[in-house]
């Protein structure tokens, strides 16, 4: 098993080296700029800093259980402008629209020993927050072939556009949505519960494949929001009527978002005339 894993890694590296070192062209894009379309998926994970609850007790644990990162998918798309300061260093700015989600579940139960009655309520809370994001990053393309791996890092300015929430609930506490007794609240806006602006540190790795006319890219980034996501001032304002009806207020947290996205880029000036791709031999003779 270990042998086969090692073999796979060796094969992968060999294939990559074929692309990176065995290519016919090198890329020369100093002082060139590109415009790109980007789009992909993301997964988010709230990092809880403070816990809050409407229902309080001195004996029972009443904390929310958050879903893991893979169960919090979202998407983003946008445009990208990049300018190459050198053949390997560039500045990259995006304007994108990103939707992130997070889920948690709560449950409560009451037992009536006198009348032999029991009441259980399990609630699955689903939240979506959409942002206009402006990541500003510096990128270092590691090699000079047609297939260029890169690393990048910078900041992301996130402006909240909208935020929504819906609660699915049933009367069986099992951690799952029980279909035959599932009901849902109305989907309501939680804009007033969320902060308008966030600043994130972002960084990632990617791979660009240059052709004469178009560059294709695949990248993955991690963004860590520096500011709190929830508005403390409005936590208990009960703006959406959920606080008492569903015994729900938001915890405070910062958001980590992992995204994977594709890009298609075109040089802003004609790539043939600007001679971005040059044969390696030709380049060496010159």
């Amino acid at each position, binding site marked *: 098993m270990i042998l086969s894993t090692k073999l796979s890694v060796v094969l992968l590296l060999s294939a990559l080296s074929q692309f990176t070192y065995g290519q016919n062209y090198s890329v020369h894009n100093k002082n060139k700029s590109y415009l790109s379309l980007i789009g992909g998926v993301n997964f988010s994970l709230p990092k809880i800093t403070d816990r809050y609850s409407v229902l309080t007790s001195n004996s029972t644990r009443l904390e929310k259980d958050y879903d893991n990162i893979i169960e919090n998918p979202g998407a983003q798309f946008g445009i990208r402008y990049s300018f190459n300061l050198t053949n390997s260093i560039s500045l990259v700015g995006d304007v994108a629209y990103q939707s992130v989600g997070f889920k948690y579940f709560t449950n409560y139960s009451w037992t009536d*020993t006198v009348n032999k009655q029991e009441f259980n309520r399990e609630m699955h809370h689903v939240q979506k927050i959409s942002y206009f994001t402006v990541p500003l990053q510096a990128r270092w393309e590691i090699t000079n072939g047609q297939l260029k791996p890169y690393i990048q890092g910078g900041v992301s300015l996130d402006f909240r556009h909208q935020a929504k929430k819906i609660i699915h609930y049933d009367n069986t506490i099992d951690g799952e949505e029980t279909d035959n007794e599932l009901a849902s609240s109305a989907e309501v806006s939680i804009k007033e519960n969320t902060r308008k602006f966030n600043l994130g540190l972002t960084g990632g790795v990617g791979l660009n494949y240059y052709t004469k006319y178009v560059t294709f890219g695949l990248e993955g980034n991690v963004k860590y929001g520096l500011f709190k996501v929830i508005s403390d001032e409005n936590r208990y304002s*009960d703006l959406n009527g959920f606080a008492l009806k569903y015994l729900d207020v938001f915890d405070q947290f910062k958001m980590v978002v992992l995204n994977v996205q594709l890009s298609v880029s075109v040089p802003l000036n004609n790539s043939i005339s600007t001679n971005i791709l040059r044969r390696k031999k030709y380049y060496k003779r010159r």
Partner: protein
Amino acid sequence: MKNNLPHTFAFNLLFLLAFGLVFLSCKKEFEPKESFIKVYNDNNGNRNYFPLSIQRTNDNGYLTLSAYNGWKIHLLKTDAVGDMLWEFDLPSKYVNAVPNLIERNGNLYFVCMDAVGLFTYVMQVDENGKNAVEFQQFTDLKYPLYAADAGDAVYIQNYIRSSFRTGIYKISSTLDQIKNSGNVQIFTDVEDKIVDHLSYTGKRFPFFVSVTPEKDYVVLSGFNNYSFSTVFMDANLDFSGVYNGAAFDGGMNAILPLGANKYSLARFSFANQYFNPNATLSPTTIDIAESIPATGKVEIDASSPILIKNISINSSDYSVYLSTTKSNQLLLSFYEKGTSVLKGSKYLGESVPLKAADFHQTQDGGLIILTRVTLMGSFNRIATIKVKKEELEASVD
């Protein structure tokens, strides 16, 4: 190099914008104690709570006094952000706690009744011991109905079952001896109504005692002369005047004496509710409560408690009414003190039944509201709502 200039400028601009936004987002840190909604959980489904009174404690938390499962007594202590610290069920011999919690020298006291002897206890809350202990008992004072703190004295209203009278007792400031007493005649046996009231099995009457700012009259709402009436007693607790209710189906729910014969009051007639935040009452008259001019409040539930308190917002004084609507929301009505001008109102809750119990202004200028909430349509629980100062200011703006 020349070609780089526009790009460099653009990126510099964007980074400046970023730092500007970061700077703008660094505003005053919000403190959780400024605003909260807390419901106090009890997994026991057959428990039924009826909150009565709330007071601030020395550690800036709160203590609530409630009835549960009828006339049994429950105490609950919270911290400054409303989270529960401890709760205590009093032994079954102590029943029928009456509003209000009374603060003396940093300690909290309340008045309740002996389950068998029906006489009155003054209980002291022991925050360190997380319980309450007997402080004083008044064996001649049966069926306590309401306790009001006038600072230099505490007044307890009661029912004198042997002579069908409503009694009013002036207790010393130290809560350990009766200084004076008076009574008025009901002329009929109302013990069944009293028992229904204090055991929470029937109609809850808005028994009430207050003292005028001049300390010349004690105003009480209670049974008198075959009716639920508002009676004025002079400083010696002798009868002075009365506004008779419409038998037992009308009268006053709440009165806030403003001084110089002015009162903010709420009166009811059957299911109808009326407010007058600036009524002129004569303490020596004999009149009927329904003759007091007041504005009808069609949305208010007349059978739920109504409280009127003097609250200061932005250095202005208001007579603030806390009431329960027929759709089970809480309604705060802000009247400019000494006028009938409604400066604003604020509804609390909309999807879960709430019932008003008590409220106070907090040290930070906000309001702490004690309410009963019915969870999942079934479970009556104690809840506190902290309204922040800014929300109050917005309500009267």
